[in-house]
């Protein structure tokens, strides 16, 4: 084999702490290396051209590129090899940036380490063989998990492009958090006026199948061919015949049911349609509060229902769907604000969350948009907003900024003034974060035009005094303690990943961070992709985002789906396992450990049992290769011999230099 080695300086990223020319010089002595050079930017156009030229000039069979992480540029250099007429798998990379130059300052040690990493890459390359992809069909249907604004946008964009969309929403209506909001910043336009039409589009679009009150039960398969099982939870109402007339809600005697849509600000009936604009507009019974389901007595709704669609015997059902791509848009939930005992969260009725306040201000909310104190129904004249409750606070393990609280707090303060002109608002803040189009202007307007008092400092405690709440905090700009007597305290509660997000991530086989937010494939360059092919992210499932960004991501995820579906056939990764039938003794232990059911048993001509890999199903993990005691099943590109070559290059003393 004729191997070429290219050692990248990456400007000064590598060259500052690695002697790249001497790494290339050392590489010339390695077995089969016929050409070695250093290059300023291997990934740049001249850099890639240099590789292609060297391949042709020196008749190279394979290349080692020593540069950044293969997770970054392996596809780039593979394409360069292909342009030069080589098979893409005749490339090996030595990661001398993330794993060498960026983590150590000792140039001598770094250079030695870089040389050895090139050495093991070259030793592995000597055993590489060209691999060729198989083609397989794509199911051009997409699953969108989550019916908030990000999921709605992704679904509508895909559906408008002619793609069949399956939308799964956990609640009984789509709309997500945005449906609960009163107005949106910085334009102060009505949230449901802009979201409502999109929700209706989802319901009416011929290409969208909506499963509300449903959850993803199980996902198997791979990009282009996922098999999804959806659990349709029992609503005790036959939705096929429910017209959403609401008669059942009027007559239901159980009127103290928890109202999740109104964030517990009010109560609702056991059978209910969460809000007037709900999509689908269907009633569902909350079994926790239904007297018929709890005690077996009542059944009023069944008696009054004009279409006789109440079914107390209803069970969960499972539906199966085949899709080719998945968009996860599971949104966010509020941090558990009750851990802030010093703010009286959860103890004083007049300390509410920002989302509760949205419902209190909303014209279609339980108070018809009249702001009232939960304790006595009195109109508050002095409202204090406390920011960063569960954001930027290491003590509660939420060190990150939730991003949009500064903006909605400004909005809520402005709206408070609109609703109650003679009211005063105070905002306790750490920093005002308003880096969006028209955002900073908006927060200024809140202060200058609406007279909202911004106090820079943390609140140390909130305590009741008579029928008001005393908010005690620091004003760090004035260097004083301040106390404000408030009629109502609104906590700008930080956001965290939606409940159950981690569990879903496991089903999707995608990564998530310690807060449950899904991991994107690359923080800058692949913000809506995941490391699992065919699974994309949108909205707050990936991290806190405001509405415009969520919508943008919904469209971005849709664009990725459409890009995937633009091809009729996908190429399977040839880095899959392969059985040497001569060595296979047919024990089929590999079939027992394969997580994907990618190995089947076949009979050879003599009638002996042998294992065989289904290439399009195999994901290339290599569990089988370790399971097989006689090494009959080998993961291509990561065979025993290839890994052993790397180990031997590192460990055998005669190879030390």
């Amino acid at each position, binding site marked *: 084999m004729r191997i070429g080695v290219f050692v990248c300086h990456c400007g000064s990223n590598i060259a500052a702490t690695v002697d790249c020319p001497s790494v290339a010089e050392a590489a010339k002595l390695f077995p089969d290396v016929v050409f070695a050079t250093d290059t300023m930017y291997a990934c740049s156009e001249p850099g890639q051209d240099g590789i292609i030229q060297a391949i042709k000039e020196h008749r190279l069979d394979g290349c080692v590129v020593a540069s950044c992480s293969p997770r970054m540029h392996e596809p780039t250099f593979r394409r360069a090899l292909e342009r030069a007429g080589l098979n893409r798998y005749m490339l090996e990379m030595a990661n001398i940036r993330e794993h060498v130059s960026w983590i150590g300052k000792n140039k001598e040690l770094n250079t030695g380490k870089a040389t050895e990493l090139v050495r093991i890459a070259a030793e592995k390359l000597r055993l590489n063989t060209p691999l060729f992809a198989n083609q397989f069909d794509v199911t051009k249907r997409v699953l969108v998990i989550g019916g908030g604004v990000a999921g709605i946008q992704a679904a509508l964009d895909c559906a408008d492009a002619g793609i069949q969309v399956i939308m799964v929403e956990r609640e009984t209506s789509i709309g997500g958090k945005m449906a609960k909001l009163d107005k949106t910043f910085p334009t102060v336009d009505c949230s449901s006026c802009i979201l409502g039409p999109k929700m209706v589009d989802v319901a009416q679009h011929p290409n969208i199948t909506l499963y509300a009150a449903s959850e993803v039960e199980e996902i198997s398969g791979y990009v282009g061919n996922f098999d999804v099982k959806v659990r349709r939870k029992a609503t005790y109402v036959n939705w096929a015949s429910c017209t959403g007339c609401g008669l059942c809600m009027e007559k239901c005697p159980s009127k103290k049911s928890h109202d999740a849509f109104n964030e517990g600000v009010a109560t609702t009936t056991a059978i209910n349609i969460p809000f007037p604009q709900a999509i689908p507009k269907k009633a569902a019974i909350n079994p926790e509060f239904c007297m018929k389901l709890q005690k077996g007595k009542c059944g009023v709704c069944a008696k009054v229902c004009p279409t006789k669609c109440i079914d107390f015997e209803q069970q969960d059902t499972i539906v199966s769907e085949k899709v080719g791509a998945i968009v996860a848009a599971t949104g966010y939930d509020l941090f558990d604000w009750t851990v802030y005992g010093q703010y009286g969260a959860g103890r004083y009725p007049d300390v509410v969350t920002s989302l509760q306040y949205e419902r209190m201000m909303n014209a279609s909310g339980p108070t018809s948009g009249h702001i009232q104190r939960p304790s006595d129904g009195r109109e508050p004249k002095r409202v204090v907003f406390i920011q960063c409750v569960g954001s930027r606070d290491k003590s509660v393990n939420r060190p990150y900024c939730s991003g949009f609280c500064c903006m909605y707090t400004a909005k809520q303060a402005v709206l408070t003034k609109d609703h109650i002109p003679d009211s005063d608002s105070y905002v306790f803040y750490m920093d005002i974060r308003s880096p969006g189009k028209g955002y900073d202007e908006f927060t200024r307007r809140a202060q200058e035009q609406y007279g909202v008092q911004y106090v820079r400092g943390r609140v140390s405690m909130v305590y009741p005094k008579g029928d008001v709440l005393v908010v005690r905090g620091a004003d760090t700009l004035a260097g004083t303690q301040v106390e404000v007597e408030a009629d109502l305290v609104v906590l700008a509660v930080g956001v965290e990943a939606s409940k159950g997000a981690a569990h879903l991530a496991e089903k999707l086989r995608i990564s998530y961070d310690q807060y449950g937010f899904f991991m994107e494939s690359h923080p800058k360059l692949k913000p809506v992709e995941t490391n699992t092919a065919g699974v994309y992210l949108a909205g707050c499932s990936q991290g806190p985002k405001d509405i415009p960004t969520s919508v943008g991501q919904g469209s971005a995820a849709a664009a990725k789906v459409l890009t995937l579906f633009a091809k009729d056939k996908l190429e399977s990764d040839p880095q899959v396992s392969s059985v040497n039938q001569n*060595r296979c*003794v047919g*024990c089929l*232990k590999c079939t027992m450990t394969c997580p994907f059911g990618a190995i089947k048993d076949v009979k050879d001509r003599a009638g002996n049992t042998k294992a065989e890999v289904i290439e399009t199903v195999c994901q290339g993990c290599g569990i089988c290769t370790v*399971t097989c*005691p*006689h*090494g009959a099943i080998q993961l291509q590109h990561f*065979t025993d011999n290839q890994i*052993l070559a790397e180990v031997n290059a590192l460990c055998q003393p005669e190879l030390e230099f």
Partner: protein
Amino acid sequence: MSTLEQLKEQIRKALPDLDVVIGWEQGYDAMHATPLFIREEADIDRLIWSPLCVHSLGTYLTGLTKSSKVQKVGLVVKGCDSRAIVQLTQERMIPRENVTLFGVGCSGCLSHARLEYKVEQGGHYVEDMHAITFNGDKVEVAVDGGVESFDFDTVCLEKCLTCRFPNAIATEHFAGEEVPVAPKREKAPSLEAFEKLPLDERFAFWQDQMRRCVRCYACRNTCPMCVCRDHCISTSRNPHWVSQEASTAENFMFQMIHTMHLAGRCIECGECQRACPVDLPIMLFRRTMVHAVKDTFNYVSGADPEATPPLLTFKAEEDNINERGW
């Protein structure tokens, strides 16, 4: 009727439906038994059953059942031998329906190595032993015209001291009385003694031992669980785990492959160590692995044909894996 007579009777009845039944017969001298292949009724008379019948005959099975000439095989098995069959069945390495087992209860087998050592210590030559009788807890050996008597426990195989499976399990036939399960030791004495050594002395010990290995692969070939045969990765080029270099390190690596491949499978028959021509105490490796499997997964190999071997399954929350807070 004695165990042997019962056994013969059972084999006699079953033989017409079987191509071959494997048992033991008297070997080349009074001290040894050797495997007997019974193909005709007349062969049955040569069958013996005594503590000399050390060989685990299951090791023939994977080869035999592949042969086109042999369809149905009968096998005489002790407790430990039967565990090998259970394990092979679990792993689908043998067509169990074509195998008929004739089980016996076993009170322990003779360790020729330990007996010979004792006889030599008594000032005799091993070659002069010409008769052996097993008399309850005693073993009497006729040597040099006299008789030397030993406690059976001092000359039995070490595995018999810790044996929890004296009676053959999952067999079609069983001859004689069941032997009570009464392990004399919790842990093999050799392992207990070895574990007292500090790490550096252990390493030095193996350095000394592994140098002697001649890589004859007798340990592998006699192992009933070594089913790869011609495809053993210790001798293949693809994959190429062990180099051809004759060195202590490579000899050691071969033993590591054997041990790791027996993880969760070894049934402690001890045939590997018994077969070793240079007396490498490789059962130390096997027993350590067996204890690790038992401690970690509460799994005993070759005990239940329906069980799943521990390395072919997992639990999301493992019961006994302490990840040491890393």
